Structure formats: C-alpha cells, structure tokens
C-alpha cells in the first residue's frame, strides 16, 4: 500500500489547517453561507436535508486496518456510530457538526486520510478495480497509476474550477470491475501486440440525466505519458466545456457535440503543443510509487484446501458463502473475499463502528492488513488463505457481515434518496430493503444468479440505475413517489444503457414488478444464462409484456 512521505503528510496537514481557518471564518460570521459553500465543497462537506454530510476519500478504495479503525472511531466520536460506503469507493458521515469537522479531519490525517476533492468541480478521487493486486490476468497493479493520478490532481491549480466534477477510473483487467466506460475518463491498462503496456483512453462516459458510454479517443497511450495526456484532455475540457447550463457541463456533452474524432484531434493537438517533460513523471518516481504496491509475500500453498472442502460440506451456509462471496486469486491457495454490506432488509452500504472494527481485525489477521471498498458498496479482503476462509466466515458472521449475496438480486446499489438527499424525488433505501426482503431466501437468490439492481431517487442517477440489469428511477408525479423501470443496462466491459420499460409504477407496485421480471427470466433462461443475457437474447418487448401483463 502507498504510504505518505513527509511531502504527502505535510500537504494533508496543511489542508486541514486551511480548512480549520475557513470553518472559523464561517462560524465567526466573516463568511456567509454563500461564500463558505464553494470552500466547504472543495473539502467534501455538503449541506443535506437534515445536517452536514462529510465525504472522506478512500483513494482507489484501498484501506489498511489502522485506517478502518480510525474511520470507526471517528463515527463514534463525531457521528452516530455508523458510516456509509459510497459508489465511488468513498465513505460518508451523515451527521457531523460543523464545528467538529476540522478535528475529525485532523484525526483522519494521522492515518493518512482526508476529504480532499471529494466534491466540487475538480478531479475527484480516482477509483479502480477492487481486486487490484489480487486478480488473475491483471497486467499490473492499476493502483500504481491511480496514485500517480492522485498526486498530480491534488490541488491542481488549473483544474480546480472545471465546468463540472470530473471522475477518472482505472482498470488493468479484461473483466472491468471499475465501470471505466461510465466515467469522464476511463483508463484500461493492457499489453499491445508489441508487448508494451499502455492505456486505452476512453472519454465521455457518465450517467446522470444524459447517460453515455465512454468513447475511445486513443487506442494505445504509452503509460509513461499518462499525465501529460490527461493534462491535455483536461485543458481542452476546461477551456471548451459548457458552463451555461450545469446539466450540459460534463465532458460527455462536449465530446458528443464535437464528435469523438474531432475531440480526439483537439486533445492530440494540445498534447503535441505542451511541454510534457515536467508533467510526466520520470521513471524513478514511478518506480518509487510502484514499490509500494509490490505483492505481499504469499506463502507457497497448494491450490486446494482440504479444510475448506470439508467445512463447505459440513456447513451448507458456509459452502454457499464460499460460492457467492469469494473469488479466484492469482496466488495458489488464496482467495479474494467479498464482504456484503447488503444484509437482507438493511441499508445498502452502511456499516456500524463495531462492524468496521471487526473488518479491521479480520484483515489484520487474515488479509495482510488490507481492505478494499467496492463501487458496489461492499468491502473486500483481497488476500485470504483458503485454509483461513472458515475462520474468516465465522468472524464475519459474528459481526453480521456474512450475507451470501454478492452480485445477486439483493446486492442492490441504492442512492441515499429522500432519506438524506435534498434533490431527491423519492426514497431509494426503503425500495432496496423491500426488494431484498422479498428475495430473502439465499438459495433462491443463488438460483437466480447474477442480477444487478440499481436504484436512484432522481434523474441525477447517483444509484447508477442506467447500468442496472434492472434499474429503478424515482420520479415525482404530482407530489407522489413513482418509479420508472429500466432494463438491460450494464456497467461492465459489455457496458450498455438500460431502456425504459414503460409507465412508472407506484411504490407499492415496484417490488412485484421486479418479481415478475425475475420470474419471466427464470422460466425462459437457457443453460447458464444470466438475467442480462436472457434479456439481450429475447429482447425488450418480451420482458415489457411480462412486466405489464395483467396479474
């Protein structure tokens, strides 16, 4: 894992002091709320329906046990003893008092954490594959490049007042777990035919009111030139992105207005004209960062574990959890463990202080001290010995963290919705809870197989409904909460935007609707088809019929 040196530590400490000064100016009345707003927004502090909300950055979703404990401690000390993991691999505190925020940030700075650029129209926290460094078939650890981007983008003087927020995601696997095609810039690290590694650069993906899949503007960028190329993209966007309408200000609108080819040539022209030598990092600095991401010392182990096999037979629930929540690891005898933050009937992404502490302890004991946060609002222990899986399972179960539903119908992404968010049309969380309760039987869920349900409480699409296999969007109809269903979306390497199924449904109808869709799929699927595959094979009409057929 990356560790701060004195430069990084100084920058974060100075940022806390700067923010402390800004908060003091606000509390003394020197700054009005209007003047304070842009300042707090640069530091992840939002004013929500009922209180301030602080968003803490978890760079590329990687945490140490010590950091997780500090997050738990802060939730006890400054909040209500829980925190919320977000779709951008970040963490949110929903109830901090303004006067406490500088102290909270001070506590986090001690464990190399901060809230820098978690909001505002700047380059946001870079996200990545939650299995980075553990996944099979990875070209190299994408977090090396995330860290390179983190440093470059931190307090970037030119790109802190962009037309709109800016999100970058990096993956280094064929199977895209970072949803790079729905980011302002998506980077896919791969080896070309000549055996060199570089990036495919995709630009202009994004959800919100006008969803777009990112388009490739450069097939292959030699990796050492990443920063200058990013600087060229950002400069074109900063100068030419629309600023007259915040709903048309994202880079996707600029790219689509110009066309991907014309946009690409603007970037190439800027890139050729700039002096890249002080922007791109020299090899020794990249090597310094790379060293931090060296793989841990895995023990030489046989691929299979006798203990795992016998416990899976003895304890059926454990066997199911192994099937649904663990994933193949590159080192023989190891597994990647997913921790579901989607208990049946629970609030997606929430974790209590005790749960965070429990995860920290388990990671320290069994996963080389490492924890990941996923964009699907779950946690990951990246490096667990298969021999230890049963112990890990029991410990997770004791902390009520062993729900065996990763990727299944109750592993739902839901935005905060009307329970917290001032922009919401409808509630999201209760819909997620009711769907999850309807499909409470884990055996049935496993039989249904991979099914991604994503819920947003308004058109801003924070719950990523456009890329849900089943998406649910909250709309306001004469003051009543209504929900529109979209079908066939995907945020993975086969990315697509879901299609609207038909008329909106009342909150009472939504859960039945999901059940009808699932029922139709189960009757009509072939072999090992997922919901999405069956949908794509049979087409939208059949599913719409099933959805709206009179009961």
């Amino acid at each position: 894992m990356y560790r701060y040196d004195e430069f990084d530590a100084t920058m974060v400490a100075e940022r806390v002091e700067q923010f402390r000064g800004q908060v003091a100016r606000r509390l003394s009345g020197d700054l009005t709320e209007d003047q304070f707003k842009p300042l707090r927004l640069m530091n992840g502090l939002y004013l929500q329906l009922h209180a301030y909300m602080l968003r803490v950055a978890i760079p590329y979703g990687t945490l140490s046990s010590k950091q997780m404990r500090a997050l738990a401690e802060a939730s006890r000390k400054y909040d209500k003893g829980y925190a919320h993991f977000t779709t951008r691999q970040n963490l949110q505190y929903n109830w901090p008092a303004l006067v406490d925020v500088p102290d909270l940030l001070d506590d986090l700075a001690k464990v190399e954490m901060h809230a820098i650029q978690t909001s505002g129209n700047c380059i946001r926290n870079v996200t990545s594959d939650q299995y980075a460094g553990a996944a099979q078939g990875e070209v190299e650890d994408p977090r090396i490049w995330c860290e390179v981007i983190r440093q470059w983008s931190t307090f970037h003087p030119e790109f802190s007042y962009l037309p709109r927020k800016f999100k970058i995601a990096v993956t280094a696997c064929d199977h895209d777990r970072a949803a790079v095609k729905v980011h302002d810039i998506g980077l896919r690290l791969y080896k070309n035919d000549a055996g060199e590694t570089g990036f495919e650069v995709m630009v202009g993906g994004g959800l919100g009111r006008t969803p777009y899949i990112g388009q490739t503007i450069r097939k292959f960028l030699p990796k050492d030139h990443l920063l200058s190329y990013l600087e060229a993209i950002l400069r074109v966007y900063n100068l030419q992105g629309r600023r007259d309408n915040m709903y048309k200000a994202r880079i996707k609108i600029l790219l689509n207005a110009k066309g991907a080819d014309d946009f690409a040539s603007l970037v190439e022209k800027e890139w050729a004209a700039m002096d890249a030598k002080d922007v791109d990092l020299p090899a020794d600095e990249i090597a310094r960062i790379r060293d931090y991401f060296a793989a841990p010392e895995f023990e030489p182990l046989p691929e299979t574990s006798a203990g795992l096999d016998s416990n899976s037979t003895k304890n059926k629930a454990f066997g199911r959890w192994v099937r649904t929540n663990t994933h193949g690891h590159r080192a023989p005898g190891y597994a990647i463990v997913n921790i579901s933050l989607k208990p049946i009937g629970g609030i997606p992404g929430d974790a209590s202080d005790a749960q965070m502490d429990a995860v920290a302890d388990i990671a320290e004991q069994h996963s080389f001290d490492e924890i990941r946060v996923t964009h699907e609002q779950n946690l990951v222990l990246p490096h667990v010995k298969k021999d230890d899986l049963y112990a890990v399972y029991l410990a997770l179960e004791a902390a009520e963290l062993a729900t065996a539903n990763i990727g299944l119908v109750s592993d739902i992404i839901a935005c905060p919705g009307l329970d917290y968010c001032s922009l919401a049309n409808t509630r999201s969380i209760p819909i997620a809870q009711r769907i999850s309760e309807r499909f409470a039987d884990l055996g049935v869920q496993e039989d249904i197989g991979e099914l991604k349900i994503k819920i947003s409480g308004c058109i801003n699409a924070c719950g990523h409904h456009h890329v849900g296999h089943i998406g649910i969007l909250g709309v306001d109809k004469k003051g009543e909460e209504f929900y529109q269903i979209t079908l066939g979306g995907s945020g993975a390497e086969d990315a697509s935007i879901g299609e609207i199924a038909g008329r909106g449904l009342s909150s009472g109808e939504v859960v039945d609707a999901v059940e009808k869709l699932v029922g139709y799929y189960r009757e009509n699927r072939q072999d090992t088809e997922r919901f999405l595959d069956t949908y794509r094979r049979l087409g939208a009409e059949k599913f719409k019929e099933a959805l709206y057929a009179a009961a």
Partner: protein
Amino acid sequence: MPLLKLIGDRLLPAIEEAKNEVSLEDWRANRIAHPDATALVIPNDADIDDLRCDVSGFSAIILEFPAFKDGRAYSQARLLRERIGYTGEIRARGDVLRDQLLYMVRCGVNGFEIAGAASDGAETALQEFSFAYQASSDGATPVWKRRRNRAAAA
C-alpha cells in the same frame, strides 16, 4: 477596485496610473486606432493558441473571472506564460476571492483586482501550502522533483 501585485512571493497593494485598455477584438480589428493601449483585455472564451496578434508589447493582459466557478482563465494564464512566453503582468479581474489567489498565482497571474473585504488574509493565502505536486507556471518545484533532489543529496 484595489489592486494587489505579486512581488517576489509576496502580495502587496499597488497604486498605479490607470492602464489604457483595449479589448482583444478591437485590437485585432484596428490596432492603429489604439496607439496608447497598454493593457489587453482577453475574454475568457478566446483561444490563446489563436490570438492572431503579438501581445508582447502590452504591459498587462487582463483575464476575466466572471464568477469564481468559471475557471477558463486559469488555463488561459498558463498558455500565455508557457506557450506564448508572455512576461508582463497578467491581471485577474472579476470574482476574485482570497481562497483562489494561490491557484491563480500558480497559473502565472501576478496582478489582482480584488475587493477590500475579499483581500483580508490575502497574504497568508499564498503561504498555506509548503509544496506543490505539479509543475505549473509559477516555477514551483513539484514534489516528485523534491523527492529526487533529496534522494540525490542523501
């Protein structure tokens, strides 16, 4: 509007004779009509790569920040310094606030039209960070270079 100027690494109040301003559009259309112009006002949608005139003779170029959120002129300032090689004063006009001064300075701005109240603490605003991660127009040594220099010295 009070004016601050960057002298060395300090921001000091400046009193000076009014500039004779000309807009980029007027200057391009008929420069003979503006023999006394000393400051060029560039709107923030102008393409610095395509100025179609020599700007080196102006003692100041004025860039516009119509709202603090509108950050186009940060890029324009860098391009004027780094690509055009303009060495005169680049002055920020508009919604110029204390908490933006550092980024403006880093992008090569060295004159600021700033309202009285907004300039409180302007001096400290430039001192809040000891380092910078990235190279920019202010010539600051980026952190990666400092690391390298330190390693070389060790």
